[in-house]
């Protein structure tokens, strides 16, 4: 039965993790503070009582070895899930991720598989600064053998975390902390969503907009504001960075002739770079205008709320770049801007925008 209730993305992930953990005893959880009072932003709260404390493995502050331990356990029939409270800590485990998790199936000629999930939390805000607010998904997306998933909306998040856990490959599941607050209708029952590719969340023909993670929410605001003045766009939530499925995006660009990408990482060598170059290769003739990439500027994230004033991309900035592709009438553009500004009010840039709670 489909439950008719709204929960946020963090709760959706918790529900998915709990349901799948109750179904399969081979699932074990690792985290620094796996069973502590906060339990990874609440996403593992109460798991010890429900599935047994012996399946909640407290992880010494030793990210590389414990990732290796999880891989070794995965080779021996377990389905480990490691939750990293900040993606930056996973860089200490890059050797195990890139050399072992990503390569075992390949190097062993298919004898081994590594059914491992690594939850990597990214985010921003409250002055967290250079080493607590990075989006490093591109680095992981480089490695064949890994799957890299970034859900934006609650219903996807639950279905995709279940899919990640039941997948026989190492899956990096990247959660933006601010997306945790996004609310949406989420079925109560156990269900799995294929790790298949982008999802079109708004339909139109003016432009193709491709977004990831928190930027999907900013883009949704733009799409809905534009729709209020009769301009409709194709908006994709990319969702899966690897394996990258660009077919629906190519189809869309064939229709719109215009492409804008917006993601949470650096613009340079970023997701947008991969999408734009692939689309140019595959569909150069479909393009009416040069595609545009939006991403973070080429410097680390500063802490001070003053220094980040122009650092992050928001709906207004997206609208302005998008307008260079769709060329709205000046008065119409102003109208859309005012609508967005009214929604945004004067919320500071370093806390989550309550508008993005949805429901979506």
């Amino acid at each position, binding site marked *: 039965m489909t439950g008719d209730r709204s929960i946020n993305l963090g709760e959706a992930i918790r529900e998915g993790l709990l349901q799948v953990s109750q179904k399969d005893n081979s699932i074990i959880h690792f985290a620094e503070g796996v069973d502590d009072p906060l339990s990874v932003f609440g996403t593992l709260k109460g798991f010890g009582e429900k599935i047994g404390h012996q399946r909640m493995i407290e992880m010494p502050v*030793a990210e590389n070895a414990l990732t290796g*331990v999880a891989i*070794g*356990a995965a080779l021996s*029939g377990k389905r480990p899930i490691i939750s990293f409270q900040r993606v930056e800590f996973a860089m200490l485990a890059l050797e195990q991720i890139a050399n072992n998790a990503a390569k075992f*199936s390949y190097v062993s000629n298919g004898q081994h598989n590594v059914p491992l999930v690594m939850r990597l939390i990214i985010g921003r805000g409250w002055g967290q600064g250079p080493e607590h607010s990075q989006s490093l998904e591109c680095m992981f997306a480089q490695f064949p053998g890994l799957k890299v998933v970034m859900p934006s909306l609650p219903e996807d998040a639950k279905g995709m975390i279940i899919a990640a856990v039941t997948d026989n490959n190492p899956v990096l599941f990247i959660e933006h902390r601010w997306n945790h607050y996004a609310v949406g209708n989420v079925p109560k029952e156990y269900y799995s969503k294929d790790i298949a590719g982008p999802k079109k969340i708004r339909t139109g023909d003016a432009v193709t907009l491709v977004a990831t993670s928190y930027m999907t929410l900013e883009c949704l605001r733009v799409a809905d504001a534009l729709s209020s003045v009769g301009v409709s766009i194709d908006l994709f939530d990319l969702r899966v960075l690897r394996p990258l499925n660009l077919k629906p995006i190519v189809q869309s660009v064939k229709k719109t002739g215009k492409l804008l990408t917006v993601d949470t990482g650096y613009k340079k060598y970023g997701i947008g770079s991969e999408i734009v170059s692939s689309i140019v290769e595959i569909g150069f003739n479909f393009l009416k205008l040069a595609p545009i990439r939006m991403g973070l500027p080429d410097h680390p994230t500063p802490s001070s709320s003053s220094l980040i004033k122009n650092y992050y991309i928001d709906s207004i900035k997206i609208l302005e770049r998008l307008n260079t592709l769709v060329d709205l009438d000046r008065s119409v553009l102003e109208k859309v801007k005012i609508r967005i500004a009214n929604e945004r009010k004067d919320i500071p840039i370093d806390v989550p925008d309550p508008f993005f709670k949805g429901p979506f």
Partner: protein
Amino acid sequence: MATIMKLEYEKSIELYACMQRIRLVEEEISKRYVEQEMRCPVHLSIGQEAAAAGVCLALENRDKVFSTHRSHAHYLSKGGNLKKMLAEIYGKVTGCIGGRGGSMHIMDLDVNMVASIPIVGSCIPLAVGSALADSLDGQDNVSIAYLGDASVEEGVFYESANFAKLRDLPVLFVCENNLYSVYTHLHERQPDRPITSVAEAHGIPTFHCDGNNVEEVYRLAVNAIENARLKRGPSFLLLDTYRWLEHCGPNFDNHIGYRTEAEFRIWKNRDPVLLYQNNLLKRGIITEEDKVELKNKIQKEITVAFEFAKSSPYPEHSTARNHVYA
């Protein structure tokens, strides 16, 4: 310390035969390497046979071995298939992993040689993870992490040792100290303290012996493995040994200047295979005829295995994309 025990006659012969097989295989690889048909780096185990045989012959098939770039001896000691190993080094489809890893990635689940990883220290946490899975499932299998002296310079060793002891996991860290990391002596890399002290600092029991004395290695291994099986936690075994050939490749390299001929000769006089052979001859456990017969038998196996490897087909290049994902 190890319990004093008299090795069974059969076990003695098994240890000797295993070491002799490793020696002769590695010598043949060394001899044929110049043909340039084995087109991958090889890190040969000549001089280190006792550390492999002494530990692996104390294991059962269900016990799991995780090895390094220098894995041939470990695989053969674990009961590995010589044909599959050579075919792997030759890059053939009949190799233990179909030519995907070459000499540095020898693995074969038939004998629970779970992985060989050529990045220093990288296999250590995998062995600990395998031990964690067995521990959670109540299995009494033992996992072996082979490591070299340089591995204890890696952070991942400390992280792994800490976790293994924290949970008293059934894992045995086997450190083959051959004194050199490529061309750099231990003294230039580590302070003057026993290597065992780094394991002891984690509360892990340590055992140390002449790694070229196969019976000593075997006795210590039996003891440590029994402890692990009885859920008494991990142990650390330090085995002093020496790599006769260059770090990577088929040649002697004493002339290039990082170590002396005199040092090499000291270790050559402690040849683990020859020492044990003489020991068994002296004790009358084998005769001169047995020795010759064994050697001939192994040589025959080697000849057949090389023929198999060389005559096996290469994998189709169109299969290079297979198995990226399970």
